[in-house]
């Protein structure tokens, strides 16, 4: 890789980082607006036009609140907890392909932080680390309710990781690659009808999205912070921006989970007739090959973000629609329903591949 394209790639990493934070910020606003919409209220509309400056006002409020350390707390770990939650949340968006590539003469810029051939395992590994922020913060607070929240988070995340991993294995059996870019490109083959993975893996997607709700601690699985039982769960003792970091980390996690679902199951940056559009632009509109590719790539970025935003909306829609599970129901769902279903899904996928119903993927790029 030349120094110039390395510089471009660094810029892409910075942009991805900024976008993750920006989306997390506006998720707080979106959550309140959507909650208001679903409950037939007005929602935040005072700060700026349509209340759009509300996240800024919230940030100012959080920064100016008193920093509080509970007595008997482990001070170092008490600070370390929210930082870790934020770091692990932000790390996973690095491997997600947000677009194909831009081409300026010789320079090719891939719209992805880093391309590694174990991208899916990387995301999975980082997601499994996300629980440490909650556990450490909850334990260091020296509070029974926080500790209960931390312990709930730990057992919940371990239980649902299993089903999540098993549902991904079925996708891997079809794709034959762990790279998220390969998985995206395989979902759309130029010149022929090709379906997104959701059509081939409906059961796997259902398992994955349930596990994604559990891994991001969103209602109906937000038992670690369940306010009716545990006051505030793991962040009971947190105030000021440390509290804010926990809240932000949750929204960054929602964003990343939505991005992963769009990429793995909903074709990522592919959209219908993209290759035809590129042909048409360069053949009858007088675009150069590079310009046509760039236009299609930018439309691809728009497509992937449209998919991500629909998933974020779905996360919020579910939150304000479904009541919370009881803890034993959560565990029973994970261990006795989702894991056997995921194993069945693997067997089913294997059978369909052997029978030739799911076609062999060819590496066309």
């Amino acid at each position, binding site marked *: 890789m030349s120094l110039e394209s390395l510089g471009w790639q660094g810029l892409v990493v910075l942009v991805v980082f900024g976008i993750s934070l920006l989306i997390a910020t506006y998720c707080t606003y979106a959550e309140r607006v959507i909650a208001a919409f679903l409950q037939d209220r007005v929602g935040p509309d005072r700060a700026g036009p349509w209340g759009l400056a509300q996240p800024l006002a919230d940030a100012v409020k959080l920064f100016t609140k008193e920093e509080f350390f509970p007595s008997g707390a482990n001070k170092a770990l008490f600070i370390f907890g929210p930082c870790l939650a934020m770091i692990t949340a932000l790390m996973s968006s690095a491997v997600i392909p947000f677009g194909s590539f831009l081409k300026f003469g010789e320079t090719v810029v891939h719209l992805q932080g880093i391309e590694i051939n174990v991208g899916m*395992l990387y995301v999975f*590994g980082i997601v499994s680390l996300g629980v440490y922020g909650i556990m450490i913060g909850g334990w260091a607070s020296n509070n029974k309710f926080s500790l209960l929240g931390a312990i709930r988070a730990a057992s919940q995340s371990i239980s649902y990781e299993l089903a999540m991993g098993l549902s991904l294995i079925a996708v891997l059996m079809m794709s034959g690659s762990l790279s998220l870019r390969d998985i995206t490109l395989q979902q759309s083959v130029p010149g022929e009808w090709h379906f997104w993975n959701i059509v081939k893996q409906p059961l796997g997607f259902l398992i994955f999205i349930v596990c994604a709700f559990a891994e991001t601690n969103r209602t109906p699985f937000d038992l670690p912070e369940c306010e009716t039982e545990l006051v505030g769960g793991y962040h009971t003792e947190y105030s000021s921006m440390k509290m804010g970091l926990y809240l932000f980390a949750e929204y960054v996690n929602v964003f990343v989970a939505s991005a992963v679902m769009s990429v793995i199951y909903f074709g990522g940056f592919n959209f219908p007739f993209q290759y035809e559009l590129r042909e048409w632009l360069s053949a009858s509109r007088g675009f150069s090959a590079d310009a046509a590719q760039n236009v299609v790539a930018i439309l691809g970025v728009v497509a992937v973000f449209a998919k991500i935003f629909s998933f974020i909306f779905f996360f919020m829609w579910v939150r304000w629609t479904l009541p919370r599970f009881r803890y034993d129901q959560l565990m029973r769902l994970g261990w006795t329903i989702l894991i056997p279903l995921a194993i069945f899904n693997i067997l089913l996928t294997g059978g369909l591949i052997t029978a030739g119903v799911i076609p062999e993927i060819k590496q066309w790029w």
Partner: protein
Amino acid sequence: MSLFLFLAFVALLSALGVVLAKNPVHSVLFLILTFFTLSAHYLMLNAQFLAAVNIIVYAGAIMVLFLFVIMFLNLNEDTEPHKPALAKIAATIAGGSLLLIMVAALHKVQPTGYNADTFDSQVGMVDRLGLVLFKQYSLPFELASILLLAAMVGSVMLGKRETGERNF
């Protein structure tokens, strides 16, 4: 080389931290850091799959369980049982002799060079690893996967509610 030295330094320091930390939770966190440095070493050896799996299995799952148990038991300096002096002396002698044997066995080891023409840098990549596992070692691989599946089914069975059991 400097990256290796830095990683090795952090690995040794955090491994020492595991043993020397007074608080068991700190020990667990140092152990997680150790696993991360080990994964970084795997990455430098171009074994990306091993690095990712090391993080997922050890740092992501097993250490969460460790932390879980330690938080539940609430271990700290006050509740730690004081071991008799004899046990401490015996442990020191045993550990010291292990160190002596290892140093004696390994101090003359020379790293063998590799042939740059025949060296295969892709050997740790996930597709190569898969080919080796499924072609050369397919029987042990399948047996291990059956063992793991049996363990998983067993845990589901244990967690399953029997008929007539109390619904707390």
